[in-house]
């Protein structure tokens, strides 16, 4: 058992994690910051974000309008104080990133350019060609290299949070290179581990998005909030699930069914116009557009393909020049993965899971219910995205809340006192080492294959917990997940070596995903209304009397999670009707 200690520990090396690390290094260079990530930071899933980051920039735009768009986009489930803070801070953060070298696309006069995006009334999305997440991540990573106070633990897989006396004491992880178990002690831990899309079968998410941080927090006793709110992105490629950015629609792309008809007009999203109109038709919010596409599938007006139904995203009328300058990556991806050129043919797309609005519950300071535990980014749920996230709000969230959680952590360790027994903490760490050896490394005679349980889990999540849900299928899924958790105990491990054991990490990730999947299903089962991304066929209306509240899933020692509710913070925008296209 190798041990080390740092002042603040960050799990996850993506946009939120790096921003938090830089904030700590800049605010107080004397604090030692550890950044633990199961992959090298530049592999974090932030890298694949394409569209942009919204921040009020133009003179005719206002913070209040950004707030309203976000609040109505969230179907009034977003906490308005957090949203106000976010909308105020995000332009400053984006500008800060520009000073750090981020190559935001420019207007001819040299000023940062903005583009329209779904659900936003004004153009306020900053972008870097169509690789915004890539440029942001690499800018943050390269900027972080100049700070000596940041120690990176690359390819260390966190398996458990250490908690003693109701406060965080650090974590236990596996150093992948050697297989050594490490205990890293720290009074403050910030979880920035991203989303959990791999719980679903068709997702834009990378292989690493398995909800590790969410499960770690949940297992340590912190609740997960709004887990039923899983966002489906309308335009993903059918087999791989690869994302075709919303920017393709923002630049003027059309969604067509098999009759070549712009079907969104049938779903209360406005009337079709030749050029895009903000908050209307293809620039509607993601949940409504995904639901409309699904509607076409059910009406039989979609194309049939080897991997299921699909519709068309038509970019041909934009012309080659526009596609090459504004959407080069879209063209590249279509040519490579679908063998079609968007300049000449419409793109085959279907809704795919993309983002998890839910996550580790935090307050407006990024603090969870566990002392010393913070969370930021997609892994957290503050909540600014509520029941549906608007495109280009999540990249900004990484920066704003990454920095805020960092500042909260600094403040916490400044006043944290209380003597904790070192031996008690280390005893927990040794306990974890023995558990890993007993349940995985030294285990023989297992009968279940990891891939099989994973496939069954994702299949049941799609059927029971997809875009449209209802009580019976949700209960079936809940039972199935229970069964899979039990079968997981009998998993077969072929690789008993210590060095870079990726089968071990796959098994651990599956364990995390099963926990997270259970919270998703139970939160969905208990919310008996339809709001944003959570659509119940048996409760098709929004119910503000009972459910203007966040679902909180708490771990219970035996059996399914306990779900209770926490009211939404309303400041200046009382709940109203979500109107698009009118």
């Amino acid at each position: 058992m190798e041990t080390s200690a740092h002042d603040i520990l960050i799990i996850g090396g993506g946009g939120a994690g790096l921003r938090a690390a830089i904030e700590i290094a800049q605010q107080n260079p004397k604090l030692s910051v550890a950044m633990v990530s199961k992959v090298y930071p530049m592999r974090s899933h932030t890298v694949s974000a394409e569209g942009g980051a919204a921040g009020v920039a133009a003179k005719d735009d206002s913070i209040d309008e950004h707030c309203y768009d976000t609040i109505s986009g969230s179907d009034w489930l977003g906490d308005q104080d957090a949203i106000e803070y976010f909308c105020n801070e995000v332009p400053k953060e984006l500008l800060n990133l520009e000073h750090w070298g981020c190559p935001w696309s420019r207007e001819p006069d040299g000023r940062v350019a903005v583009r329209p995006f779904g659900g936003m009334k004004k153009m306020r999305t900053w972008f870097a060609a169509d690789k915004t997440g890539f440029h942001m991540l690499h800018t943050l990573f390269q900027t972080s290299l100049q700070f000596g106070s940041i120690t990176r633990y690359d390819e260390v897989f966190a398996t458990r949070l250490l908690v003693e006396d109701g406060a965080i004491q650090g974590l236990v992880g596996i150093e992948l290179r050697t297989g050594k178990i490490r205990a890293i002690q720290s009074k403050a831990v910030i979880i920035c581990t991203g989303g959990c899309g791999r719980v679903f079968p068709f997702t834009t998410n990378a292989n690493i998005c398995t909800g590790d941080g969410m499960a770690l927090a949940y297992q340590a006793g912190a609740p997960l909030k709004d887990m039923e709110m899983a966002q489906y992105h309308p335009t993903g490629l059918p087999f791989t699930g690869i994302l075709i950015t919303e920017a393709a629609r923002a630049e003027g792309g059309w969604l067509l069914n098999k009759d070549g008809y712009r079907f969104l007009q049938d779903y209360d999203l406005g009337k079709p116009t030749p050029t895009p109109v903000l908050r209307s038709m293809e620039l509607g919010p993601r949940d409504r557009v995904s639901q409309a596409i699904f509607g076409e599938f059910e009406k039989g007006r979609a194309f049939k393909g080897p991997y299921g139904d699909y519709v068309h995203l038509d970019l041909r009328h934009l012309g080659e020049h526009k596609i090459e300058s504004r959407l080069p990556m879209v063209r590249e991806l279509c040519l490579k993965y679908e063998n079609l050129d968007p300049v000449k043919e419409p793109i085959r797309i279907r809704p795919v899971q993309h983002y998890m609005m839910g996550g580790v519950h935090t307050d407006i300071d990024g603090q969870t219910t566990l002392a010393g535990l913070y969370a930021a980014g997609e892994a957290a749920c503050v909540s600014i995205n509520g029941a549906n996230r608007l495109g280009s709000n999540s990249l900004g969230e990484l920066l704003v809340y990454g920095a805020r959680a960092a500042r909260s952590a600094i403040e916490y360790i400044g006043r944290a006192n209380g003597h904790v027994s070192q031996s008690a903490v280390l005893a927990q760490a040794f306990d974890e080492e023995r558990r890993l050896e007993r349940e995985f490394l030294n285990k023989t005679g297992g009968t279940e294959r990891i891939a099989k349980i994973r496939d069954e889990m994702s299949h049941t999540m799609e059927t029971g917990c997809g875009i449209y849900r209802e009580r019976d299928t949700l209960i079936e899924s809940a039972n199935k997940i229970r069964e899979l958790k039990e079968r997981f105990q009998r998993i077969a491990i072929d690789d008993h070596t210590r060095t870079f054991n990726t089968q071990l990490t796959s098994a651990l990730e599956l364990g995390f995903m099963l926990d997270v999947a259970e919270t998703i299903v139970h939160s969905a089962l208990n919310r008996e209304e339809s709001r944003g991304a959570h659509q119940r066929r048996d409760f098709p209306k929004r119910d503000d009397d009972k459910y203007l509240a966040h679902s909180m899933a708490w771990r219970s020692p035996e059996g399914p999670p306990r779900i209770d509710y926490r009211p939404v913070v309303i400041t200046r925008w009382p709940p109203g009707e979500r109107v698009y296209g009118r």
Partner: protein
Amino acid sequence: MPQYTTYQPKPYRPRMSAYWYLDQWNYLRYAMRESSSFFVAYFAAITLLQIAALDRGPTAYAHFQQLMRCPVVLVLNALALAFILLHAVTWFLLVPRVALRQMLGRPTPNVIASVPNFMVWFGATVIVALFILRVI
């Protein structure tokens, strides 16, 4: 048996073969391009011999010309010419990669940028040929 101590795996460090350039066609092309410098030196040596022979008078020069007519030397010179042409062509194609040039707001394709080099080379060759053939 490997000397593995728990938690201290030794990574495998492959050694690059001395014949690495035979692995890929692109590497072989590179190796030929670099070895063409040898033939440039060879030609320079021949030219120096030629000048020295010229300096010593007509019999020495006739002896030199006879030497140049030997079949072995002819083959060697032909090979050298091939390599020198390779040397010149690859050099001219490479030079545009070095200069930072933006024409019409876009980086210029290398091939187009190397055209002036080739034109100058061709022009110089024509002039030298005219000299040799006693036209000028």
